[in-house]
C-alpha cells in the first residue's frame, strides 16, 4: 500500500470528531488568548473603541495581520492609506491561500456550500492540527470545524480583558507570548518527520525563507519558502 492512499478517503461529518478536534487545538488556546489580550491592549492604546476592536477580531480574524495593521495604523484614513492597509493585510495573510489549497484534496469532496464557509476558519493553529489529523488518515470534517470554531470564540473573547486592562500587558514578550507559534510549530515538526528524503523540501523551504527574510522586506519569506519547498517536492520522484 502506498503511503498516500489514505489521503483519498473523502470527507464526511460525524460529531464524534468534535472532541478530538478541540483537544488537538487545546495547546493553542493559552497562546491565542494571550495574543488576543495583548492585541486588545494595543488597540486601547491606539484609541480604538471596544466595539471596533471586536468588529475587527470578528471579520478580519487574522491575528498577525491585525497586529501589523494596527501597529502601522495611519493618522488619517484616506483611499490610499486604506489601500496600503489592505495590501499589508494581504501579504501577511497570503499564507492562508496555501493552507486552504492544501485542504482541497480533503474538503474538495464536500459540497461547495459546506467547504467554502469551512475555509473561513483557516488559521495557523487550526490548519496545522487538521493537517496532522489528515496525515494520520483522518477524514472527519468536524475535526477541523470544531477546533476552528473554538479557536474563533476564544479569539473573540480574549481581547476584551486585554482592552480593559491595557497597561498590564504592554510587553507580551516578557511572558514569552511571541514564542507560542514557533514553539507550537516546532512541536508539530517532530512527529511529521518521516526520514531525510521527505525533509528535502523542508530544507529548501528553510533556505529560501532565510534568504528572502534577509533581503526582502515584509512577510514574503513565508510564501516564497513554502512555494519553493512545495515545488521541490513536486520535482522529486517517489
Amino acid at each position, binding site marked *: 500500500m502506498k503511503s498516500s492512499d489514505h489521503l483519498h478517503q473523502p470527507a464526511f461529518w460525524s460529531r464524534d470528531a468534535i472532541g478530538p478536534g478541540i483537544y488537538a487545538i487545546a495547546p493553542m488556546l493559552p497562546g491565542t488568548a494571550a495574543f488576543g489580550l495583548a492585541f486588545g491592549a494595543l488597540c486601547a492604546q491606539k484609541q480604538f473603541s471596544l466595539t471596533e476592536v471586536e468588529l475587527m477580531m470578528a471579520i478580519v480574524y487574522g491575528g498577525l495581520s491585525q497586529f501589523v495593521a494596527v501597529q502601522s495604523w495611519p493618522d488619517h484614513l484616506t483611499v490610499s492609506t486604506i489601500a496600503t492597509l489592505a495590501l499589508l493585510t494581504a501579504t501577511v495573510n497570503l499564507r492562508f491561500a496555501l493552507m486552504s489549497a492544501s485542504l482541497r484534496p480533503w474538503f474538495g469532496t464536500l459540497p461547495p456550500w459546506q467547504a467554502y464557509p469551512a475555509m473561513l476558519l483557516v488559521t495557523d493553529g487550526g490548519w496545522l492540527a487538521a493537517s496532522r489529523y489528515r496525515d494520520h488518515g483522518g477524514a472527519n470534517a468536524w475535526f477541523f470545524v470544531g477546533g476552528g470554531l473554538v479557536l474563533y470564540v476564544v479569539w473573540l473573547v480574549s481581547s476584551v480583558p486585554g482592552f480593559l486592562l491595557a497597561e498590564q500587558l504592554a510587553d507580551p514578550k516578557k511572558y514569552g507570548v511571541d514564542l507560542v507559534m514557533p514553539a507550537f510549530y516546532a512541536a508539530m515538526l517532530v512527529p511529521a518527520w518521516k526520514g531525510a528524503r521527505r525533509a528535502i523540501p523542508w530544507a529548501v523551504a528553510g533556505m529560501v525563507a532565510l534568504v528572502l527574510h534577509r533581503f526582502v522586506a515584509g512577510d514574503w519569506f513565508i510564501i516564497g519558502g513554502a512555494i519553493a519547498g512545495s515545488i521541490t517536492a*513536486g520535482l522529486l520522484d*517517489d
Partner: protein
Amino acid sequence: MTDSVRPDVLIAFVAMMAVTVAARVGGFWVMRYIPITPRVRRMLDALPGSIIVAASLPMVVSGGVVVIIAIVAAMTVTIIRRNDFVAVIVGMAVAALARALGFSG
C-alpha cells in the same frame, strides 16, 4: 465613546476582511481547476511542513539566543513526551525566564 464605530475605520476593516477572505477561499478555489495528479499531491503534501519551516526558521535564526533555547526546549519536550501543550508552555516559560535573567532576544 467606547461603543461607537467610526465609518472610515469600518471601511478599512472591510477592506482588510475582503483580502483575508480572498486568501482563505482563493487557494481552495484555485485548486478546483488544477487536477490533482501524483505530482500535485506530492506538492500539496509537502506544503504544511514547508510553511512551518519557512515561517519559523528565519524567526529562530534572527531571534537570538533566547528564541533558539526556547525552541530547542520545546522540541526536546516533544521528543520525550509527545505533548504539544507541555511543549508550548515550556517554550514560553524558558523564554520568559531567560528574559527575566537579562538575556536579550
